[in-house]
């Protein structure tokens, strides 16, 4: 019975891996990785009994913790990265417009830009961090 269960869980892990390889969007892949992780926890618990070493259960709990935190961290990273890329594109577009319209006057765009980039960048990271923890609280 233990072995049947272990084989079924392993097959599910293989299916999750297939979804992670196929998955068209990043979120499909994160979903598959999350599933793979929770199935690992189950597999560890089953193997603890199959092998007769119940200290595997400690590993199962630690793995559950790491999997949860890891998935949240990846989601945070993806979200933050997307925001960052959008900001970057907007800034590049704005700069292109500025240079196109005011080609003769580089003074307002030139020196004011580097500090603006710095200030944009830091709050964006902090904001991403707090919003992830807010998600975790809320749900």
């Amino acid at each position, binding site marked *: *019975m*233990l072995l*049947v*269960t272990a084989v*079924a*869980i392993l*097959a*599910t*892990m*293989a*299916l*999750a891996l*297939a*979804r992670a390889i*196929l998955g068209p*969007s990043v*979120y*499909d892949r*994160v*979903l*598959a990785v*999350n*599933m793979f992780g*929770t*199935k690992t*926890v*189950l597999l560890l*618990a*089953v193997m603890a*009994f199959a092998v007769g070493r*119940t200290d595997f*259960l*400690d590993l*199962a*709990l630690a793995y*559950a*913790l790491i999997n*949860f935190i890891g*998935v*949240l961290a990846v*989601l945070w990273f*993806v*979200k933050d990265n*997307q925001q960052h890329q959008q900001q970057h594109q907007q800034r590049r577009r704005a700069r292109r417009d500025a240079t196109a319209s005011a080609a003769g006057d580089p003074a307002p765009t030139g020196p004011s830009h580097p500090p603006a980039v710095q200030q944009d960048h830091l709050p964006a990271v902090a904001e991403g961090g707090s919003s*992830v923890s807010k*998600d*975790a609280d809320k*749900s």
Partner: protein
Amino acid sequence: MNGILDIVSGLLMVSGALFVLAGGIGALRMPDFYTRIHGASLTDSLGPVLVLGGLMLQSGLSLVTLKLAAVLLFLMITSPTASYALANAALLSGLRPAGYAGTPGEQLEKGERS
């Protein structure tokens, strides 16, 4: 007595494994992202309950049962939370499910009284 307990725990585990396997199949063959989460959540709800419940019956009253219960409780709290975080992140990034016209984070009009 012991034989019956073994049979029951084996049945629980195998039926749990069935749910887990069906969830894996669901996550692979559902048509779009949000329905795939439904498939994956099949592996996160009754599957662990049955598999870990079956293991608990095998171990009887001991420290191992307590640890299994703690693992189960932890999974039951974190897996829906992770699913929600994933779905919400996808929604906020602009991946809209079919038939959803609203804006995420916006309240209902009649909900204003709260």
